[in-house]
């Protein structure tokens, strides 16, 4: 009877298999099944809040209707059905079940037939959900299935949900702490009720009431002098717990958190007009002081040892509160809660609705001052502050109601709180004015609408992840600065929140009920920052390839130097405060916000498109001050300015203004830029106002602009007070010995391009040579050819260790290459000999062949060294179709121990002939895209070299590590300055636990994921599968080598899925040292800040860590390395113009010495040295050694120990390493190079 219908449905389903079924979340389509299961996400991304509009609604239907009308619920619910299956008897399926149990499940008979169809049906009709087969039932527990389904559906992925769960457990406030605090709160409540009343004191009486040495009334500025009203204290109308602790959305914070208690002043203390001219605030200040004065003795009497201080709540100087800290005492009867790390804020609040809220709208003036102008400016900050003081309790109730209505609200609030906290946001003004309270209110508003016509943005049935993501998406995509969100906090009244497009150009979420702008503490600057962060996070949440849980929620990302490309420190001179007049005072309340606003405006105008983000912050020490002071004494005049640059614009030499014919705008432009503004005709014929800047080596243009603009508009000598470390880092890079060096900006790639051009011309010549087989391709394969060499390529600079640039030649395809490795190399040599002969006779190129020992065991490789007339050196190696076959054959034929060795040989071959070519291609593309990659990687190399690490690493590995912040900067963003990039690399290295995690780099240009769909498919991003393959490789390696003895740094990319191509030959001590040094460096920067001396310290090696240190000296090779020696006049050093007769005389002999040492003693000692001797002053270098720990122990004598040993004197037949003998030989081998040797005792 059901059959026709179900069949019909079956057909229907076949016709549109994907759209309806798959989008209804859980049914894993066959297509998805083909994909390997990625633990990160992949198939679990069934639903994404991204398509929240419609899909979300559908979801809601599912949720709400799940209980009564399962017919509409998709297959997912069938899992739940399984659970209750025994009881579901209405469709008579039970019979089938029993029948089934007696049958074998493979058996297809009539009854089963029906059953089957139901199974198909159940994709749409869970009501008829097919009972699981016998076998299945044994395996699956219904709850598990349900859980698995649910997590996959409602969260980004299983793993994301599980991680959120764990996180929630981790941040939960301890029960014992809560219990203790509750006890404290009760006692405190009792104390407050014991405070006696006092009434009708005049100002004088009020002031004299207190012993000014002990307590002072924290009157806001201006301090009242004569008043015609009186001060009183009456018991508070209401004492209630507000804030996150009351809402139970609080999380554990390592630095401790605070609990807010609101004491509502009785209504009778106020008159309706008290909102004007600080009157209410003065009354409140008295109330606060009176309370504190009585609390102190009371608390002592009642065994609650506390310390009370004043605290500006959220940095709002109008709102001092009492901050209560616990004191640790010996008395066991004392109720001390310092261990809970909680502090209590006693907030004195106004009764709700005591003032007419319309009078306190943001555009009203409530502070009357004498002024020449007819109309006083509005006082939005003051108004909002007063309003918010009336609404603590009110908003708690509102949020509580919302929390009750949405199950996951609480959890989502915690997520949001954590997210904000990790990014340095908070309710305090100096933290951007957007904290968990604002987050929660916004979420509540969005649960009630939020779209243009009040359409819903979030739904009550959403999971915490969906709520969180929805809110982030809302922040990222809607502009609450140009538009605003209007909502009503009236409980019970169902008014939709609406987004309105024409706003007030201040960040606004307007509560129609209280007339309060929730975002009153935010500024356009902090809002744009919030929006930017939301955008970055949204991209991360949309990432389906990698698990982004860490950067979204776990990592702290509030370190200025990594958050911003340029960080400036500005100390404001005293005399500037004159410009802060009474009118400014009433609209900005504090000098700090006035200045911040002014700075932001000037910078915004001056930088325009050059900066994406401008962050201005007062370097404030603390908003806490003792109760015998009226306000904090130490006023901090330091401001921190952080900029995030736009790489396309920031280095442009011309700031373009309006066209000439736009009179009004032109005038504005001219008045802003003053004398620097000029009128120019551009190539396209337009005449425009503009400002032209000159590039300087030691200062980015952005900095010049800032200095000029601040001098002009803030204070004539303010640029003297502007401190920035931005140039110190770029100045660390060696100056090339080139005539044009002084006028270059740090990001220039000119010298590199010259080198590439030289290779291009060589390529042309090679292509035209008359050879038995033509040259098919010449692929660049050196670090300078991919813009990443420490030293810029300088013509004729033969001492540069990177002077020789590798390139891989391929001849036309031929089948006649010999089938044996040695003969193959010989044949290649024959070709190279021919090329060399032709080049030497027919062109101005000089060439010769050298032996190459870069691939062990293959002794017959030769390279063609070519010196070009431009002054560059290229080293050609030949790749044929046979090479790889032969190396692989060798691996296949090898047995036992040899196999591993030959795999290494193959890796070497792959490095030199295949990998480096691919790598060069990828990196040079990226270097063009990321302007600051080249200087950053060069600085990073310099740092490694200064720490004697560089020569242990392959260039390619270093470059990949340096690319990390560029292609995957989360939780920070792509660096656009050397400083930022360098610190981010260090940050990554310091935190990279390479034993447990791999580094998978997606080497593509754009990090933005929200590109439109089609381009996503075409892009060469790593697919989930590719990512999975790399991860599996890592797992495989770690399975056989869990502690990372053999392979430490695993760096996979699409060029090298194996992940070990460039890091295969590293040693554990080197890898750990890299981590340790990065940590130390970062620690230094974080604790001591960046100063010239600290930066120098970063680049100073720690010699005391080594077992012995040899000072060596070579001939002068600084200039011949292409470096302009420091402390010399440029005109005294002539650029290089020719090669010496024997180019090897300019090589660095110290490198040969270290090579030799490594050949002889690598088993016993790890030698380190600076690869770039030319970078050292006076041509000395240092060779350091550390004894390999494994070599130091006593050993049984064997012939093949491979160590220099001496017999142990106790006749045990054991030997031990002969340290003195070794050092003796090392010194001997150094000959005249060695200056001194120092051995650690």
């Amino acid at each position, binding site marked *: 009877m059901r059959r026709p219908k179900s069949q019909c449905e079956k057909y229907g389903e076949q016709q549109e298999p994907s759209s309806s079924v798959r989008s209804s979340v859980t049914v894993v389509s066959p297509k998805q099944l083909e994909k390997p299961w990625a633990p990160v996400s992949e198939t679990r991304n069934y639903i994404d809040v991204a398509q929240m509009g419609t899909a979300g609604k559908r979801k809601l239907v599912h949720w709400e209707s799940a209980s009564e009308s399962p017919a509409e619920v998709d297959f997912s619910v069938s899992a739940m059905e399984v659970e209750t299956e025994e009881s579901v008897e209405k469709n008579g399926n039970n019979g089938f079940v029993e029948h089934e149990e007696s049958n074998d499940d493979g058996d297809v008979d009539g009854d089963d037939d029906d059953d089957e169809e139901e199974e198909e049906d159940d994709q749409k009709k869970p009501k008829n959900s097919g009972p699981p087969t016998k076998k299945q039932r044994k395996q699956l527990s219904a709850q598990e299935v349900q859980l698995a389904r649910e997590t996959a559906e409602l969260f980004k992925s299983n793993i994301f949900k599980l991680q959120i769960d764990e996180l929630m457990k981790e941040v939960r406030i301890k029960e014992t702490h809560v219990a203790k605090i509750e006890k404290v709160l009760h006692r405190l409540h009792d104390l407050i009720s014991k405070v006696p009343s006092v009434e009708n004191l005049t100002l004088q009486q009020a002031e004299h009431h207190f012993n000014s040495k002990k307590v002072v009334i924290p009157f806001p500025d201006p301090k009242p002098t004569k008043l015609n009203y009186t001060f009183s204290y009456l018991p508070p109308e209401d004492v209630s717990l507000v804030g996150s602790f009351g809402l139970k959305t609080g999380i554990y914070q390592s630095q401790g958190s605070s609990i807010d208690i609101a004491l509502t002043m009785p209504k009778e203390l106020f008159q309706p007009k008290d909102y004007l001219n600080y009157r209410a605030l003065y009354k409140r200040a008295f109330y606060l002081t009176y309370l504190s004065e009585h609390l102190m003795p009371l608390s002592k009497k009642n065994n609650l040892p506390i310390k009370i201080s004043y605290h500006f709540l959220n940095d709002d100087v109008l709102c001092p509160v009492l901050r209560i800290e616990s004191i640790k005492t010996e008395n066991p009867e004392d109720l001390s809660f310092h261990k809970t790390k909680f502090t209590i804020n006693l907030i004195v609040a106004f009764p709700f609705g005591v003032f007419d809220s319309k009078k306190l709208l943001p555009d009203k003036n409530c502070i009357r001052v004498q002024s020449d102008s007819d109309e006083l400016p509005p006082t939005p900050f003051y108004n909002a502050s007063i309003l918010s003081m009336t609404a603590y309790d009110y908003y708690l109730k509102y949020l509580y109601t919302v929390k009750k209505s949405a199950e996951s609200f609480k959890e989502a609030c915690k997520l949001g709180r954590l997210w904000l906290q990790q990014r340095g946001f908070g309710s305090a003004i100096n933290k951007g004015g957007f904290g968990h309270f604002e987050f929660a209110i916004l979420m509540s508003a969005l649960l009630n609408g939020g779209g243009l016509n009040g359409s819903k943005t979030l739904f009550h049935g959403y999971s915490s992840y969906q709520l969180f993501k929805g809110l982030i998406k809302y922040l990222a995509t809607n502009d609450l600065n140009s538009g605003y969100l209007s909502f009503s906090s009236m409980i019970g009244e169902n008014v939709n929140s609406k987004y309105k497009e024409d706003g007030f150009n201040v960040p606004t979420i307007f509560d129609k009920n209280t007339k309060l702008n929730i975002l009153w503490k935010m500024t356009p600057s902090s809002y744009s920052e919030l929006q930017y962060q939301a955008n970055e996070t949204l991209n991360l949440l949309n990432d389906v390839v990698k698990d982004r849980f860490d950067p979204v929620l776990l990592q702290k990302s509030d370190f200025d130097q990594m958050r911003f490309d340029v960080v400036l420190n500005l100390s404001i001179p005293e005399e500037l405060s004159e410009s802060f007049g009474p009118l400014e005072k009433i609209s900005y309340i504090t000098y700090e916000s006035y200045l911040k606003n002014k700075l932001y405006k000037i910078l915004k105008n001056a930088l325009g498109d050059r900066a994406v983000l401008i962050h201005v912050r007062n370097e404030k020490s603390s908003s806490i001050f003792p109760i015998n002071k009226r306000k904090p004494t130490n006023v901090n005049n330091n401001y921190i300015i952080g900029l995030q640059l736009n790489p396309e614009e920031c280095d442009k030499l011309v700031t373009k203004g309006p066209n000439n014919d736009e009179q009004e705008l032109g005038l504005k432009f001219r008045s802003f830029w003053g004398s620097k503004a000029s009128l120019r005709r551009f190539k396209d014929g337009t005449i425009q106002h503009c400002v032209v800047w000159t590039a300087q080596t030691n200062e980015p243009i952005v900095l010049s602009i800032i200095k000029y603009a601040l001098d002009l508009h803030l204070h004539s000598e303010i640029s003297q007070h502007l401190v920035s470390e931005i140039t110190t880092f770029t100045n660390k890079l060696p100056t090339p010995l080139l005539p044009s060096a002084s006028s270059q900006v740090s990001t220039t790639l000119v010298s590199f391009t010259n080198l590439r051009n030289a290779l291009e011309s060589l390529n042309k010549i090679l292509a035209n040579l008359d050879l038995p087989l033509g040259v098919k391709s010449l692929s660049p394969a050196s670090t300078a050819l991919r813009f990443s060499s420490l030293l810029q390529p300088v013509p004729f600079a033969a001492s540069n260790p990177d002077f020789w640039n590798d390139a891989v030649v391929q001849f036309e395809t031929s089948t006649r290459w010999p089938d*044996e490795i040695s003969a193959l190399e010989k044949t290649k040599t024959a070709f190279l000999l021919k090329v060399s002969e032709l080049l030497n006779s027919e062109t101005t190129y000089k060439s010769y062949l050298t032996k190459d020992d870069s691939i062990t065991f293959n002794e017959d490789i030769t390279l063609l060294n070519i010196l070009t007339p431009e002054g560059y050196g290229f080293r050609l190696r030949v790749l044929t179709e046979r090479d790889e076959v032969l190396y692989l054959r060798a691996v296949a034929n090898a047995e036992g121990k040899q196999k591993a060795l030959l795999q290494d040989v193959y890796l070497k071959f792959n490095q030199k002939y295949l990998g480096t070519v691919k790598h060069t291609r990828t990196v040079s593309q990226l270097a063009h895209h990321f302007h600051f990659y080249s200087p950053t990687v060069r600085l990073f190399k310099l740092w490694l070299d200064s720490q004697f690490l560089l020569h242990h690493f392959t260039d390619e590995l270093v470059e990949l590590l340096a690319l990390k912040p560029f292609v995957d900067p989360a939780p920070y963003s792509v660096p656009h300055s050397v400083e930022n990039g360098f610190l981010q690399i260090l940050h990554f290295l310091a935190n990279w636990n390479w034993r447990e995690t791999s580094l998978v780099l997606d080497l593509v240009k754009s990090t933005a994921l929200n590109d439109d769909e089609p381009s996503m498919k075409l892009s060469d991003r790593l697919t989930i599968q590719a990512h999975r393959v790399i991860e599996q490789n890592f797992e495989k390696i770690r399975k056989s080598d869990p502690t990372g003895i053999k392979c430490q740094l695993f760096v996979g990319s699409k060029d090298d899925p194996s992940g070990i191509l460039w890091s295969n030959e590293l040693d554990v001590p080197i890898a750990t040292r890299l981590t340790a040094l990065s940590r130390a460096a970062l620690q230094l920067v974080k604790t001591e800040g960046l100063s010239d001396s600290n930066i120098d310290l970063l680049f100073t090696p720690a010699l005391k860590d080594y077992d012995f240190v040899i000072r060596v000296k070579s001939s002068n090779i600084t200039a011949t390395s292409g470096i302009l020696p420091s402390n010399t006049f440029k005109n005294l050093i002539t650029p290089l113009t020719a090669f010496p007769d024997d180019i090897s005389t300019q090589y660095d002999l110290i490198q040969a010495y270290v*090579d030799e040492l490594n050949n002889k003693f690598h088993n016993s000692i790890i030698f380190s040295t600076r690869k770039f001797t030319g970078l050292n002053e006076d041509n000395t270098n240092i060779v350091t050694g550390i004894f390999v720990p494994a070599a130091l122990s006593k050993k049984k004598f064997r012939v093949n120990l491979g160590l220099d040993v001496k017999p142990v004197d106790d006749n045990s037949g054991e030997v031990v390493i002969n340290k003195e003998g070794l050092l003796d030989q090392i010194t001997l081998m150094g000959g005249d190079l060695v200056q001194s040797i120092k051995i650690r005792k």
Partner: protein
Amino acid sequence: MAVTELKGFYVLPVSSPKSQVPHYIFFKKHDSKNSGSSTNNGRALFMCNLPVATSTASLKKFFQEVAIGATIESFVPSLLNDCPLDVWVNLTKLTSDLELNPELLSAQNADEEAAKLPKNCGIVSFVDKSAFQLAFNSLKKLSASAKTTPWTFPTFDSKYYLQRYQAKILDPEVLSESVSQALVDFDRAERESKEALQQQTQLVDEDGFTLVVGSHRKTKAGIMGKQKLAATVEVEKAQNKMKKKEKEDFYRFQLRQRKKDEMNELLQKFKLDQEKVRMMKEKKRFRPY
């Protein structure tokens, strides 16, 4: 008391004239196991832990001082002395089974012996047995006295390292000669192997089969390799074909099986994830501070 003997090795302390820091050489009579190199049997000395840069010249000088008359015939140092590895591998042998010509072979044999020697070891052969006895006895005496004997090191200086760089540059004349010689040899070896292979095509085995050799085949191993490859390719092809033909959603049991699999897979993945998160938790990863 200083150790003079260690597991059958005599200990010989030596030092450079300047520093007096002793370096210990371990030596014993060389007894070669393989009869092939029996030529120097009985008159060779195996020395272990030789100082850096020990060469025939430095050894000659040493023996002149400690045992006049003990003339050295040859000194075979380990190939590993100058390379940062512990084993030596001959790539040619692994990539080809061509029988290279005899001269090459003998050169390789010597190489092979050197390749087998562990790092910092060497074999000193003397001209005759008496020379060996002389040298061996005087070394034993020195060893027994446990005094350090002076050892001359070659001089290392900047010139030495410069030469290392210069030595890498190959002379084109010499190079082209050696290359052409090597290629001629290789061609010949290849030709011979080919001819040998061709001869096999003439042979008819007991079952009446002959070997079929393609025109490009050079060695027998090549044929075997090809066959192996062909076999695997065939199997794969056949499997692919089978797969293509199979219809996956024809029988109900297939559908049911698939659904079951899906369910199981989902659960399995979920379990995996749980496990992963548990691991992460153990590592205390969820500390957002």
